[in-house]
Every structure is written in structure tokens, then in C-alpha cells.
């Protein structure tokens, strides 16, 4: 992943239910539609999350991954982590203690600056010569 793409930190509302979740998703949707979205959800204010809220989080990560991006969670309260575990969602998200750690994690595993542009079977790899020899 190219580190030049910005990391966006977004605060999750205190309640992530059907009503609040829809409003939250409308807010985050434009970010998810960018190229390679890199989003950190600051869950420090999050106190109540239900099945609808979990579904919205799943929808967010699904949209981000479709575009080769990722959504990471930060500052999640123990109660919210317990709910994520109960729903088996915890393994889908990377969860960090602080927003800074989550932001740093995007830079830590950055891909090489010069991406490979040529396929391995192209002529420049001299596959033909290797075969002839």
C-alpha cells in the first residue's frame, strides 16, 4: 500500500445502532469511495453498539477492501471489544489501543515505492533465454 495515500481518522458516535449507524455511514461513505481508503475509526466515544452497528462496521471494511484499502479500529472500550468478540467480528478488524498506533500501522507495512509494472512472464525477464538454455 502506498504511504502517500492519506490516513483519515474518523470518530464513531457514542451509539452505533440502526439510526445513528445510518447517519454515520452516510458520513463515511465518500471516504470509502476514494482510491485505497485508509481509515481509522476512533471508537473512544463508542458506548453502545448493537447488531445493526456491527453490520455497518462490516459494510465499511467490505467497501474499503474492495478498493484495496482498510478500516482499523482504535480506542475501543472493553465492552465494545467483548461485543465484537461475541459476534466474531474482532478477527476481521485490526484493533489498536490508540489512534496514533492505528495511524502508524498503516505506514509500518507500506509496499515498495516502485511497484512492479511488468508481469513476470514478460520478455524483460528473459524467460525465453532461460528456456533455450
Amino acid at each position, binding site marked *: 500500500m502506498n504511504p502517500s495515500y492519506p490516513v483519515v481518522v474518523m470518530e464513531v458516535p457514542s451509539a452505533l445502532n440502526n439510526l445513528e449507524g445510518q447517519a454515520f455511514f452516510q458520513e463515511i461513505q465518500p471516504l470509502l469511495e476514494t482510491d485505497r481508503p485508509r481509515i481509522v475509526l476512533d471508537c473512544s466515544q463508542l458506548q453502545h453498539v*448493537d*447488531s445493526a452497528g456491527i453490520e455497518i462496521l462490516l459494510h465499511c471494511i467490505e467497501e474499503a477492501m474492495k478498493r484495496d484499502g482498510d478500516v482499523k479500529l482504535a480506542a475501543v*472500550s*472493553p*465492552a465494545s*471489544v*467483548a*461485543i465484537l*468478540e*461475541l*459476534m*466474531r467480528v474482532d478477527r476481521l478488524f485490526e484493533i489498536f489501543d490508540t489512534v496514533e498506533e492505528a495511524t502508524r500501522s498503516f505506514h509500518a507495512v507500506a509496499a515498495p515505492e516502485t511497484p512492479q509494472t511488468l508481469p513476470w512472464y514478460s520478455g524483460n525477464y528473459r524467460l525465453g533465454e532461460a528456456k533455450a538454455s
Partner: protein
Amino acid sequence: MGLGAVVVLTMEKDTGVYAGTDGQQQPLVAQPLGCVDVLGRPIVERTIQHLLNAGVEKVTLLTSKDVFRNCPSLANRLDKVEVQLVDNPYSAVNHMLSRYAEDGIDQAFVLADNVYAETDLLDFVYFHREAKKGITRAFDQEGPLDLWVVDCADFSRFDLEKMGAADGDAASYFIAGYVHRLLHPGDLRAIIADSLRGICAMRPCGQEVRPGIWVDEGAEIDRRARIVAPAYIGCHTRVREDALVTRCSSIERDCCIDFGTIVEDSSILANTRVGIWLDVRHAVASGNKLLSLKHDVLLRIADPNVMRFNGILPNEETNDPSGNRERAAHPVVSKIQPEAAPERWQLGANLIQG
């Protein structure tokens, strides 16, 4: 030289209350932890049985009306026990000891419901008689226990309300055996794990259908569910397809573990329905409440599809609109078929892994 016992059952010490990380006091269960079913029977019932087996002639259970109302099944189970409903159970102990003295009972055990101790009770009594101090308090490695032997005639010296104010005069009896205090719902989990691992003498109810797997009367376990030893499945509990119960987990009576749910290192207390495709790990669950021991937090689940008390909503299987589950409708014998060999085509039909 008769023996008596006074068992004090109360929630005054917040034994059933757990403080969440948000500082709110929330009860996981409405009754004292000693009255909660543990592997089929409440701890207090096991303790009373232990007392009766040791030759105690008269057992009195002192409790308040509020506590007793939350333990409706207790009265039916304790047929040999006199239950006294009082405003303050601790202050009623002295009165009860004086009555014992009048009835010719010389010594009596006095204990709270928050102690589970495996010890030779008669040895405790003999020690008390030899000490000649009137009061003997039990200790273990962690300190004093709410378990005494007292001379009934000397009851005035006994002040349970102050919890050991008379300790200066009391003899100390050290219990080297298995002792567990029930001060937190997590203690239930610990004692269940100890029992299933064989660390203590407490045994689950029901039959051991495979080594380490205990199944109580009327339990229904689907062929595609997996139970990994050691584990306990309680009376009239249903474990449905693709569910997994593992790592010293216990499911108490009248529960339902729905499709694909994993119960790992957890205890599901009585009358709890756990919904489909959930992951209950390192937790104690009761109704719509889940205490995560890993995160030290108590969750209240509002969505009844996720977790709820069992039997409140209509029973889907019998289409009973009243929601009342008729026990007679369930087979008396467990539906588990340990001897039946799975068909070749049935993937995952390996019901139990011992």
C-alpha cells in the same frame, strides 16, 4: 451431643453483584451465588448435603424474603431443611442458636453461602471440642472463612454481624483441603472448571456419557454438535447443529445453544438462550447478560435474537404460543446416541471428542 447447622443466605455482601468497568453496580444474577446452579445443583444445596452426610441433625437456612423470592426452586430442593425468613439473617443467628440449645443441640456449624469447603466436618467438630473456646473459626491459606463451629449455649459471644469480632477468643481450624469463596461471578466459573478437571470432589449431576462429558436428564445434543471434554450439559438443555462446547464449559438446565455457536471456557447459567453463530469465550452468561471475564466487563444484550432468557418467547419447535416449555414433552432419556456409528456420508457426525 447433637449437631446443628445454621446457613446464612444473603446478598448483603454483594456476592451476586458485579461492578462493571463503568462503575455501575449491575447484578449478573438476581440471587446469591450460592443459589445459582453449578453443574446441576446450587452450591448451598451441596453444602447442606455435605452437612447432613456428616451427621448434622438439624439444618436451618436463614434468609430474607427478597432473596428467597429469587430462589423459588430452593424450597423444593431442601426438604430436610428448615427455612426461616427474617429481615436480617445475620442478627437472627443468635436467636437460632438459643433455640438449638433449648432443643438439646450442643454445637452447631454457622456458615455463609459464599463458602465451598471440602473438609472433614466431624474433625472440625472434634477440634472445636478439644479447643474448649466456645467458638472455632475455619481458615484456609487465604485467611478466615465464613465458617464456624460454636457452642450453642455460648451463643451470646457469637457476633456474626461483625464478622469475626470474637476472633480473639476463637480457636482457629485450618482447612487444608479444597476451599473456594464465591465472591464474584467469576468464582462460579473457576469452581466449575476445577470440578470438571477433577481438582475438587464436587461432581456434576447426570451421567458421564464419555470420559469427562456429563449430560443431565433430558438434554438434547444434535448429532452435528461437538462437545469436547471436559464439559457439562444440563437438564433439558439443547445443543443444536454445528455448535461447539469446549474447554471446561458448562451449560446449565433449560438452556439452548443455537446453530454454530461456540462456547469456550464459559459457563451458561440456567434458562439462557444463546443465538446463532456467536462466540462465547471466557465468560459467564445468564439470560441476556454476559460477563466477559477476559475484559472484566458485564454486557447487557438488548437484542433477544442474540441472547435472552429461555422459555419467554414461543417455542419454535412445538409451536407453543404460550412459550411454556413442557418438561414432559421432552424425552426422559438424553437424545445423545453414544453407541451409534455415524454414517459414512455424514461429515462432522463425530459428536463427541473425549
